[in-house]
């Protein structure tokens, strides 16, 4: 029997979600040996898989270069349309896959909260993040003026150097935060891996995609939420 991904191209994220996604594909009956062993190859044509960094997945799926993709809700929140027609990636979010669970948090240095003090005395808090859109929206919704500082690397460094008073970042276990003397002040949103689809593929390959969803929902080991 051919696996239910036949005729479909799936964008698979390298990084934290990679292992869970490959397990999922293996559970569907795909031969994932090469995918697991060769981390330089990007295109696995015989099993219809392409690999990339998680934040690129919506880009490829939106363009139709992949029919389906797996990426974190954090990436979708940062990139996808918050409201239709208001911009963002035009992709369909089909399924909460349950794994890769982490939390978007606002954290600052232990002790008296420097962000609160900045807000009170200066009227604005400086926040470093890799997720400027999520951060900006959250702070706006909670009625706080903030100066968002976008960084690409270790966000934890920013408050330790005094560049900002707080950070908004994704954390799974909180270990890195603790090691850098940062404590979680607020939990913003819980993020898990999501299955997304290209809008046109969702129509033109409806039967294949629905069949795959059926299989995914029936996989207990995948921890589909």
């Amino acid at each position, binding site marked *: 029997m051919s696996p239910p991904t036949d005729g479909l191209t799936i964008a698979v994220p390298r990084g934290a979600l990679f292992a869970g996604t490959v397990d999922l594909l293996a559970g569907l009956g795909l031969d994932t040996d090469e995918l697991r062993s060769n981390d330089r190859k990007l295109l696995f044509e015989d099993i219809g898989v392409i690999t990339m960094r998680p934040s690129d997945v919506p880009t490829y799926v*939106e*363009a139709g270069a992949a029919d389906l993709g797996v990426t974190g809700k954090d990436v979708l929140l940062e990139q996808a349309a918050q409201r239709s027609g208001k*911009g963002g990636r035009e992709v369909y979010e089909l399924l909460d896959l349950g794994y890769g669970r982490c939390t978007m948090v606002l954290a600052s240095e232990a002790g008296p909260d420097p962000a609160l003090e900045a807000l009170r005395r200066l009227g604005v808090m400086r926040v470093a993040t890799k997720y400027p859109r999520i951060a900006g929206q959250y702070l706006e919704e909670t009625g706080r003026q903030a100066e968002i500082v976008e960084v690409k690397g270790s966000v934890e460094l920013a408050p330790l150097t005094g560049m900002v008073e707080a950070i908004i970042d994704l954390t799974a276990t909180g270990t890195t935060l603790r090691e850098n003397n940062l404590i979680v002040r607020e939990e913003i949103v819980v993020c898990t891996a999501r299955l997304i689809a290209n*809008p046109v593929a*969702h129509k033109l390959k409806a039967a294949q995609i629905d069949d795959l969803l059926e299989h995914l929902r029936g996989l207990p080991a995948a921890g589909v939420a």
Partner: protein
Amino acid sequence: MIHPIPSGTRDVLPEETREVRAITDTLRAVFERHGYGELYTPALEYESVLARADMAEAQPAYRVFDESGAVLVLRSDMTVPIARVVATRYGSSEPPLRFCYFAHCYRGVPPQRGQPRELLQAGIELIGSAAPQGTAEALTMLCDSLDATGLKDYRIGMGDASLFPALMASLEVPEAARGDLMQALVRRDFVGLEHTLAEAGLSDEATELLLNVPQRRGGPEVLTDAPEPAVEAVTGMRLVHELLEPDVAARVIFDLGLVRDIGYYTGAVFEVYDPALGGPIGGGGRYDDLLGHFGRKLPAVGFALGVDRLHVALAGEERGTGALLEREASA
């Protein structure tokens, strides 16, 4: 020297213009042959006039003040201006009225996404012809037009804008949750839809229906055993389908979850897909209430094609390497 132009706009140079012109000439010939007369309307209109239409997510994005302080907007589509024209210039003409247009429309764009701010649309409006005949005529026109351009592998997704609201109303979804559910559906965020449904405190049966019905899409088989509240919309789709010639009917994919981001649609809605392009080439639908807002209550239907998107799809089919094409061949 660099003299920039706004992102989402571009210069079209002679070689491309020649190709685009060939497409629009072909479309124009089809439109005119079927009695759709071409018209022009101003790109700038009074905001207060266009505001009579519910544009939902496709509202005009650019406003300017004129010398007397009136607020003008750059039109975001051609359907609303044509509704205005019909009410003001054809107030007593015997329907049906048939118009076509080739016009630039203007939409707000998020930064750095490569989306057009100014887009060339080609479309028709059929005013005063109710469902199902009017809808069938528009779909036939759509297929004739695309066939004439030489596009081969396109399909038409067809749904009904009234289906999901009717479903929510009959299942007694709390008013407060309806907006969120509709938003989730417009974005096709099925995970969000599931979460919002879980919080709305509905029966398992209602939740299942609201989650499942919008995911039904495919051939005429999706129209069978529709749940009670969806029967009216589904029957409407079947009636339209029965009126279509076989070659047009074969292009249709029924999609009970199809909703468009424009608010004025009341009945059948459709979108054009081609494997050579990752997004819809165009779309349209019935807007039976819109003309009434301008003072001439007539049922109407129309569609608009994105000429640049059509051009990209044609080029992709020609090369045999579109977004979804290439892999279909190798699969």
